């Protein structure tokens, strides 16, 4: 319980600092928001007027406070480029990116746990060596190239999906998820490779532990030792990796959305960066970072549940 309260405290502070940093980052842009909105041709007076209107003449912390309150209430400002509320643009794209990320995460777990266990158990033997070579190879493929390769293989050769044929979730969840499987896979594969490698070395380490010998001495079979004792223990360090991987998965989604031409948060972010549409960039980044922090929080809590020793320190 104490652990949970402490973690919630850290969560709130982290969220506050992240939002503050993101807010400040966009305050130091050369030429302030009023300037970017009006263009360089505007007169000084007009600029001052707009600055007042936008509240840019108030102290920074005060502006941060009101910005944060607005943000929490769902008012994320207005896009410079499209002059529509940022929240509406985001609301539409968020489910897309979220779906990709969740699928990639599930895919990562589903592949790396069994293969990591296998490689660890048979370490040094042929299947392990083949797997390790493949692993290193997969880790060397840039994310977007993985996406292109997967498009080639599943889209152009096997015809399992139509490249570029994204279907919005508003038109049907089945085809929507069916299309997103492929970017999710492209994101997950490199993470799988890393996860397999980590779990493998963790399993090798745990197999040498005394408690494994104890488990055998009580008459457990190899399978019982592996699943009843070793698995849980070897997952502990990997759970930490998974928490970090969440951030990477979301980031990779930014790139893979481009490869698969999917209108998600990532595409929105890249477009807004090109258009210097700062309110949108700011909102997306705060949202994504917030999401990552919250997921990390849940992983931490999960860690506390798996490992009884955590409560102590």
């Amino acid at each position, binding site marked *: 319980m104490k652990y949970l309260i402490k973690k919630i405290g850290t969560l709130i502070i*982290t969220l506050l*600092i*992240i939002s503050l*940093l*993101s807010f400040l*980052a*966009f305050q*130091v*842009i050369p030429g302030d928001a009023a300037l970017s909105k009006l263009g360089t041709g505007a007169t000084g007076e007009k600029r001052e007027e707009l600055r007042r209107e936008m509240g840019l003449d108030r102290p920074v912390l005060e502006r941060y406070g009101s910005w944060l309150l607005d943000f929490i209430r769902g008012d994320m400002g207005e896009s410079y480029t499209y002059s529509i509320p940022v929240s509406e643009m985001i609301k539409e794209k968020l489910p897309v990116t979220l779906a990709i990320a969740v699928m990639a995460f599930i895919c990562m777990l589903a592949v790396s746990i069994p293969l990591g266990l296998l490689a660890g158990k048979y*370490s*040094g033997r042929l299947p392990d*060596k083949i797997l*390790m070579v493949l692993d*290193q*190879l997969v*880790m*060397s*493929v*840039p*994310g*977007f*190239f993985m996406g*292109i*390769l997967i*498009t*080639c293989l599943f889209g*152009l050769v096997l015809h399992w999906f139509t490249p570029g044929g994204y279907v919005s979730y508003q038109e049907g969840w089945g085809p929507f998820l069916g299309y997103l499987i492929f970017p999710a896979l492209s994101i997950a594969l490199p993470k799988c490779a890393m996860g397999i*490698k980590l779990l*493998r*070395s963790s399993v*090798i380490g745990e197999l040498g532990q005394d408690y494994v010998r104890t488990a055998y001495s009580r008459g457990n079979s190899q399978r019982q030792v592996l699943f009843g004792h070793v698995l849980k223990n070897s997952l502990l360090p990997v759970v930490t990796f998974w928490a*970090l991987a969440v*951030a*990477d998965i*979301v*980031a*990779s989604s*930014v*790139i893979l959305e*481009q*490869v698969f031409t999917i209108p998600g948060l990532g595409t929105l*972010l*890249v477009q*807004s*960066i*090109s258009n*210097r549409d*700062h309110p949108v*960039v700011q909102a997306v*980044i705060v949202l*994504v*970072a917030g999401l*990552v*922090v919250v997921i*990390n929080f849940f992983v931490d809590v999960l860690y506390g549940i798996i490992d009884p020793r955590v409560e102590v320190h």
Partner: protein
Amino acid sequence: MEKGFYRYNMVVGGILAGVMTVFMLVGLFYTPYDPETMDPFLKFAHASLAHPFGCDQFGRDIFSRVLQGSGTTFLVAVGTLAIGAGTGTFLGLATGYFGGWPDEAIMRFNDLIVAFPSILLALISISLLGPGKYNVILALGIVFIPSFARIVRSEVIVHKDMDYVKSARLMGVGHMRILFVHILPNIKGTLFSALAIGFNNAVLSEAGMSYLGIGVQPPDASIGRMMSEGQAYIFTAPWSILFPGVVMILMVLGFGLLSDGCGDRDA
């Protein structure tokens, strides 16, 4: 058996990394053809002796473009490491060795930074700085500082309590000399491994950013941007994307194996 496997990894990785480094260095100064010269007669030309990687949609020699792009990649990666690893190592050495509140503050800040995916951080920086080769170096360099600081710090913490450091201190050796002459050479294995991984991350991040069109800008060549352009012709001219991709994989693979071999062995 395991050890042999890792040594094998390291040898293969070393050779590969060496060859690719030479490739990248050459790309900085020399290309067989002008990478920008378009030749309508060579549009989508297949691979041949004259054009080993074939030609792209404008009839430009892909090999020359990849070579030049590799040069850019190398420049960005080395620049990034110079900023990221340089500053990070210095911070890690200082905070790990002296401890105290600066250490605590920097580590908390580190934890915070982890929440931002590194490419996202780089994207924010780019959106503030604007795209371009040097801004990419600056953005990635800053983004890489925390991870190096963290790695070096944890190594220093282990080493500063070891007997050789204690005895050096007893003999009156100054802090700076202990840090740079005594501790630094002893953590070079870890540092080298981290550098190789950092190199890879820089290469991959630059490629990703350039692919998105917010990294290296023309006229600087970039493999990431080449591939984004080639993606449209994946059926008509698969080589325009395949060869750049393979070169990139070889670069990353070489340094990955090398880092694997010289870092902590996991078995």
